[in-house]
């Protein structure tokens, strides 16, 4: 009996000591960041590993396929969950995340510590600010990105191709300066009998790809999604500029490799690497694979260019990229640890390292540096593109608006349903319904 009592006392003491030991380690020892599954997330993991070496705090970057990324984050928001400390989220999410209280307000940290001044104004506005012009920031601009183009220089610089193109179109074959020229070049290089097609463009219906792809032509053609503070879409979404832009985008799809009817970044790189496309549209973040000779057999002869101009000379590119936000539902201690990481990450030397690894820094000084411009063949086109980016709706209703644009764009571009005017008229009417129901323009 005595033995049993002693054993019990020892056990209780051990358990108490154990709990004491746990409670003594109250400091945060690891941070979890959620991001989509792509190369920049791997680069961020490398940065996180370097942070761990310096501070002892492990950083885990958890990656989710793009098609499911928003759903996973939204499900966590729904549960008011703390599965992640930080999320590198799309700019469109800001309105919803802020108004529903999922993101921590970082204004004091970003503005108070002067970090806001270290990044380019466009990235701070699109990735971090909500509402627009409010001066309230909820994300640190992390991965600046936009759509650009990769092309086969070996095909463009081939003397026979150059002569044939000039004879057919009346101007020299070169990097296109207008969308019309891009269409001509796509047509010229489309030779199904040789397995070669002119251009690869986004068509995926799952999330936002086809909308982002179309935005490149839409903004450059002088079109827009809405007008005014009450987000009027009627006559804007279905404006003549937008109709012309959509028709051009659909023409580009006519010169796309077969099988790219539900295509996003992976399919774009695939058709380029396997020699099916002379040019492809893609976010700059996906170009590192094309510059790697072990992946892309045409790496040495792959060139990159920024979006061409519309009929009136306007140049715009669909904004990609994300900012890092802190989860509002984690403990204050974890929030402080997350902000510590962002403070460290925002330092210029770490942003330079981020750029060196392949991340697209938003730090102004690093972006302008010779080191950044020369570190990758596509960086000059990226730096040029980041001067004319534009974004989709970032209001809380974006989630209801996006399926409408996706369905009508995919139906017309891929399915050939109706005309561009009909598709955009229907799109405008449905978007107007959603916005009116949400109280805009009331």
């Amino acid at each position, binding site marked *: 009996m005595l033995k049993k009592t002693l054993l019990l006392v020892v056990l209780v003491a051990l358990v108490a000591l154990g709990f004491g030991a746990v409670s003594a380690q109250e400091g945060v020892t690891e941070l979890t960041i959620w991001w989509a599954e792509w190369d920049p997330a791997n680069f961020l993991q490398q940065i996180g590993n370097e942070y761990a070496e310096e501070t002892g705090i492990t950083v885990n970057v958890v990656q989710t396929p793009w098609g499911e990324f928003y759903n996973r984050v939204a499900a966590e928001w729904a549960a008011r969950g703390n599965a992640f400390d930080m999320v590198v989220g799309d700019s469109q999410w800001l309105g*919803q995340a802020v108004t529903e209280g999922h993101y921590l307000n970082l204004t004091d940290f970003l503005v108070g510590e002067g970090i806001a001044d270290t990044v380019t104004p466009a990235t701070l506005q699109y990735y971090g600010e909500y509402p627009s012009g409010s001066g309230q920031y909820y994300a640190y601009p992390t991965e600046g990105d936009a759509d650009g183009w990769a092309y086969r220089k070996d095909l463009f610089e081939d003397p026979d191709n150059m002569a044939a193109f000039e004879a057919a179109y009346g101007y020299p074959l070169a990097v296109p300066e207008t969308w019309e020229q891009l269409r001509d070049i796509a047509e010229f290089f489309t030779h199904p009998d040789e397995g070669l097609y002119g251009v690869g463009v986004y068509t995926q*219906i*799952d999330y936002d790809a086809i909308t982002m792809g179309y935005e490149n032509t839409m903004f450059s053609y002088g079109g827009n999604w809405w007008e005014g503070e009450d987000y009027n879409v009627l006559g804007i979404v279905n404006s003549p500029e937008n109709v012309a832009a959509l028709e051009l985008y659909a023409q580009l799809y006519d010169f796309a490799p077969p099988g790219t*009817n539900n295509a996003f970044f992976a399919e774009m790189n695939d058709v380029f690497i396997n020699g099916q496309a002379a040019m492809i549209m893609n976010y700059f973040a996906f170009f590192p694979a094309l510059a790697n000779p072990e992946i892309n057999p045409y790496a040495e002869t792959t060139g990159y260019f920024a979006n061409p101009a519309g009929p009136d000379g306007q140049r715009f590119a669909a904004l990609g990229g994300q900012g890092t936000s802190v989860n509002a539902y984690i403990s204050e201690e974890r929030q402080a640890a997350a902000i510590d990481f962002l403070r460290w990450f925002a330092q210029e030397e770490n942003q330079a390292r981020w750029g060196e690894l392949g991340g697209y820094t938003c730090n102004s000084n690093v972006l302008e540096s010779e080191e950044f411009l020369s570190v990758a063949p596509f960086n000059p086109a990226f730096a040029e593109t980041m001067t004319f980016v534009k974004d989709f709706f970032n209001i809380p209703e974006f*989630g209801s608006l996006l399926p409408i644009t996706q*369905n009508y764009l*995919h139906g017309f571009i891929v399915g050939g349903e109706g005309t561009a005017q009909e598709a955009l008229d229907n799109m405008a009417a449905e978007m107007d319904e959603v916005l009116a129901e949400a109280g805009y323009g009331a």
Partner: protein
Amino acid sequence: MSQATTGAAAPQVTPYRAAGRRHLSDRQILLLFILPTMILLICMNLIPLIYSLFLSFTEYSVISGTPPAWVGLDNYTQILTSADFWANFATTGRFAILSVVLETAVGFGLALLLRYKFRGSGIITTLILVPMMLSPIVVATFWKLIFNPSYGIFNYLIGFTNPNTAPEWLGRSDLAMWAIVIVDTWMWSPFVMLLCLAGLSAIPDYLYEAASIDRASAWFQFRRITLPQVMPLLLIAVLFRTIEAFKQFDLVMGLTGGGLGTETVSVRLYRLAFQGQFDTGMSSALAYIILVVIIAISNLLIRALNRVREG
């Protein structure tokens, strides 16, 4: 001494325990075994079912942080008067009819072919069953490659040897639905075959022997013996496949993403409930409408099944 102690203590404890056990009737023991399952079912199925029924009468988004607001029948009215939702139901119905008819025909045909044992019939039957054991999303990913007009084998097998003129199955509105039906048929015909084989093997040989003695033709034997005998199992296969077809989601998302007129009602439900929209109230209403439709169709099939059994 110790024996005496044990002997003295035993009568005090054992009768009490024994009496305790005796108090449990068979019914109580039955309930005791059922209780864990009942609790699980109530917590995991019944409560969410009732809660989602309540939500279907509210305007509510699960991620909004605001409580559900009662809107009565608004969600149901909106769904039932929306041309878009009817289009989704029509797409689902078209898919269900095409796929179930093809699966029944192919599955029953395969069962007739494999009915009699021959050398290697076991391994062939097993191989035919492989598709239904695969994950639908894996199947969809493979078939996307198979349908690819440039390097996929499907067009080649059906005679389109020139990739330039070959149809783009997943890129045309008129073919996308057929592509999904083909994949679903490939995947689930073996299931129908399996049930039909079970039915065929249960038909007594003497029925065919008697028919042969009476000089009945093969067609007569099929119509009057094989078909009626297999019918109950065939209808069960049709019932299962119809219910599954109405819930079709994975293959559609994997093959077309719901584009080109292939957005089934389940895909619409997913988009409404999760993807970007998180319209929990409306999606709950749609889920209940789907539930009612499935129950109604199942009822019709079960009645048909009962008629076959009785008749």
